[in-house]
């Protein structure tokens, strides 16, 4: 079972790798829309990648209004 910190780390790793942002520039409290420079369509793509990586389903309504990595990881953690 992953800890929340581990899940957050994996979310940051995945986001950095896919959106080609240096990993060291990302922190758990960052607004991912701003930091990754993504729009809502790309956020949906991030959702698909997270679902695939963690092997879970993450309904859109559970991440509505979420914009920071830590809260996103928390929503994922609840489904692991």
């Amino acid at each position: 079972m992953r800890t929340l910190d581990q899940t957050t780390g994996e979310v940051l790793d995945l986001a950095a790798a896919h959106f080609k942002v240096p990993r060291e520039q990302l922190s758990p409290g960052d607004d991912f829309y701003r930091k990754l420079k993504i729009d809502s369509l790309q956020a949906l793509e991030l959702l698909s990648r997270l679902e695939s990586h963690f092997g879970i389903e993450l309904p859109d309504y559970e991440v509505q209004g979420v914009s920071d990595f830590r809260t996103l990881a928390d929503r994922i953690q609840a489904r692991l």
Partner: protein
Amino acid sequence: MNDFKGQTLSWKLDGGIVEVELHYAPCNEIGLAMLDDLERLVQALPELETQASALILYSSRKEGFSAGGDLRELYRLSLATEGQTRADGMRAFVERVHRVANMLDASPLTTIAAVHGICFGGGFELALTCDLIVADKMARFAFPELRLGIIPGFGGIPRLRRDVGNAVVRDLLFTGRSINAVKAQAVGLVSQVAAEGEALRLARSTAAQVLKYDRYTSAVCKKFAKPIPLEDLRREIELFCELFERPAVMEALRKFVGSTDAYPYLP
């Protein structure tokens, strides 16, 4: 007409396969322009069906297969009319869409939707007219209509019910959430999941397999295996038109059109 290039879509017949490319910016919204071209396609089908065994429907827009109905156009046209005239206009549009969808659904060709990116609302309904859906692993499917105070109106509910169980039908409709391609395959909506960017290639490979079989037998098999839920489709038109007349719908459309979000149709 074996080849066609329109404002919203193009098609070409090659080696027994009709490939229909949706290319209407930003993401193949289905409004009057798309409907005109889809009507041209179904008018051409009888001739194409004498020379082909399979049809592939795909999008060349990077955003996805289709974002659904053209809500901006719908709002603009609805604002220009009111009362019974508005209701009649909406009904006429929906009736036209259903005629096209039913003809695609009933075509003796084996039809394959190659889906990537977003496949929402009316776009999802268009994909559901096809016999098979091959989806890019990053594709997402959703019916977000309830947030506008309407139900899917292009035949989505009866066709969804034809293909999958109630748990999925109600989850998609009542929550408006999107599901990914792997989930869509697990519940029976998608027949094959492709690697990123490979959905069209897999659809072509599937179509090539279809070509090996006798066309007449395939058509008989399709007619038996995939009956068209005509009674429910009629009922859906009535319900959709009834809901569309409520003032809450125009208000929801107004908010949608006024949104500054680049992709306001997203959940």
